[in-house]
């Protein structure tokens, strides 16, 4: 099962390598990983999307907590959350099919952030289901390039 883990870490050199090394060294799986600073100076938030059965997820969380530079680990699957991922897609949009592409972009409430004669670059934000659906729909036009941020997640205030 897929789990999203929110990990607060001390922002020190090597902290990413400690976390990533833990996953690779123990044979755990990383689907996506996102790191960025928080409001507190010197503290970063990592969001890791991973898969495994109950025992493996438990072990991943415990092993993460054991790392000296890890301050807090939350399994977001245990909470009601808002989850979002951003994607940039460069999709073929020849004159004949441009309208069709734009219609899909519109339906998904994406933004067009760059245009050329042959393609459109589209920005979209949403949960994984939406992003997957968008990619599926645009694939038939030909996606030239894709860049995804990986999922970020936040607990809802009303649990």
């Amino acid at each position, binding site marked *: 099962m897929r789990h999203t883990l929110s990990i607060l870490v001390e922002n020190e050199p090597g902290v990413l390598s400690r976390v990533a*090394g833990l996953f690779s060294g123990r044979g755990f799986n990383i689907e996506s990983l996102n790191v960025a600073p928080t409001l507190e100076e010197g503290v970063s938030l990592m969001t890791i999307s991973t898969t495994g059965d109950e025992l493996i997820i438990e072990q991943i969380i*415990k092993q993460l907590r054991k790392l000296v530079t890890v301050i807090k680990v939350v399994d977001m699957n245990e909470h009601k959350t808002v989850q979002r991922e951003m994607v940039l897609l460069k999709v073929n949009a020849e004159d004949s099919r441009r309208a069709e592409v734009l219609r899909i972009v519109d339906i998904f409430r994406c933004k067009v952030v760059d245009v050329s004669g042959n393609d459109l670059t589209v920005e979209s934000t949403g949960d994984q289901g939406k992003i997957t659906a968008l990619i599926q729909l645009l694939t038939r036009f030909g996606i030239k390039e894709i860049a995804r941020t990986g999922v970020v997640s936040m607990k809802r205030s009303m649990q």
Partner: protein
Amino acid sequence: MELTGAQIFLECLKKEGVQHIFGFPGGVVIPIYDELPKHPEITHYLVRHEQGAAHMADGYARATGKVGVCLVTSGPGATNTVTGIATAYMDSIPMVVFTGQVPVGLIGNDAFQEVDIVGITRPCTKHNYLVKDVTKLAQTIKEAFYLASSGRPGPVLVDLPKDVLTATAEFKYPRSVSIRSYKPHESPSVPQIRKALDLIRSAERPMFYSGGGVITANASEELTWLAKNLDIPVASTLMGLGAFPGNDPLWLGMLGMHGTYCANKAIQECDVLIAVGARFDDRVTGKLSSFAPHAKIVHMDIDPTSIRKNVKVDVPIVADCRMALKALHDEAEPNLKKKGWLKSHAAWLKQIAAWRKDHPLTYIKDPAKKIIKPQQVVETIYELTKGDAIIATEVGQNQMWAAQFYHYHKPRTLITSGGLGTMGYGFPAAIGAKAAWPDKLVIDVAGDGSIQMCIQELATAVCYGFDVKIVILNNGYLGMVRQWQELFYDKNYCATCMEFQPDFVKLAESYGAAGFRISDPAKLKGTLKKAFAVKKPVIVDVTCAQEENVYPMVPAGASLSDMLLV
């Protein structure tokens, strides 16, 4: 007054009460060596190879419970300690390794003798640091000692660039450490302790499975009290030997791959298994799905990752083993006299006695009395010392026989590389133990293969008068691998025969140590006695039966019920 980094370094060690450093100098750590003579309270032992330094610091730590310290230079000096660090990491040994590093400005430039030792040791240290600023040096060293010795102990590495050692700063040693992201959970939850005790007192066939954590936590007294007062037999892992007296009627012996018949049978039949400071390692459990099939499991360990890693646990208790056992004691003691509070274990203990009688630990002596059996050597060492010695071992058959045929009565009397299984570990570790306990008899039970891996430390032993006794069970083979080849690879003895060997007696003598050779069983005891009395390092080269196997044996991946017996 401002001090240089090198001076701060040594002041910090002094504040931590460090008396012994095992080390080897090199270009970037000369500033430290330049200051060292001004600190007579710290003795530095010059080793012959940095791996030896790491194992000595480790052996010192195991023999005392204190933090072992080693100091080496950058690049190859640092990488040579990696095996020693990994050894200590696998067995949770408190150790701080200081490595020199090229000046901060050169880091990343592939400078001479530069290596990213922090990157290399990340997966085999509890934590590690690169100090880039001399003002952070004291704080970092304080944290390193704190991390190494608290919670589940382990090795910590501190990388010291040369310019940090020569830069100056005000020296102030922090009195305490608080790391917000590191708070070991030491005291047990009382409800969990009560739940465990309820299980234990209503059990008909309970047993302890005691591990290295009992020794680390100095909990052997608490374990012994509980076992004796609650009438519960004790089996132990290799790492736990010595935590419970090896001559007690409740003692089952070591369990696992080369465990005793009765310990392994007891695991398979018990109804409550109390694991203390152990981690259900594959060498202990054999096939997991058939391990302790009838047992409810209580598991006490300070490291939450050890719990439910390999087996499902009924009552997990995350705590320091000593505090957990003490809490069990406190809950149990007032009830001991209540009639019927504790179920009788008479039938269980009778069954165990029967198993022990049916298949005791044994071997077949040479009927012609011409060939020495390796087990006999270990038995004779026990006979001569009565357990009053520190035994270090190398790895392989020698290690297993030392675990089986010597009886350990006190904690910290067996020093052996359990988790990593590092050949070459025993001799330098024995030197570390000897540095800690100069008046104790320290014996390294070795194989002819293992001993050659760190034999260069004979020079260190002779130089500093560490009269460690090395007893080589010389069978001319890498015996444990040969045993596997015999049993599971149709006796295809590829690359296990030590066709060429040095003359160990002459080798000892050339270093200034003493050498003895024995091949006649009649002379075994006398020669060992003589060797142990010599006031300098000794090699006793014992020519043993060549193709002797370690039994019992549970083949890798098999169930503990499927033991191969003598």
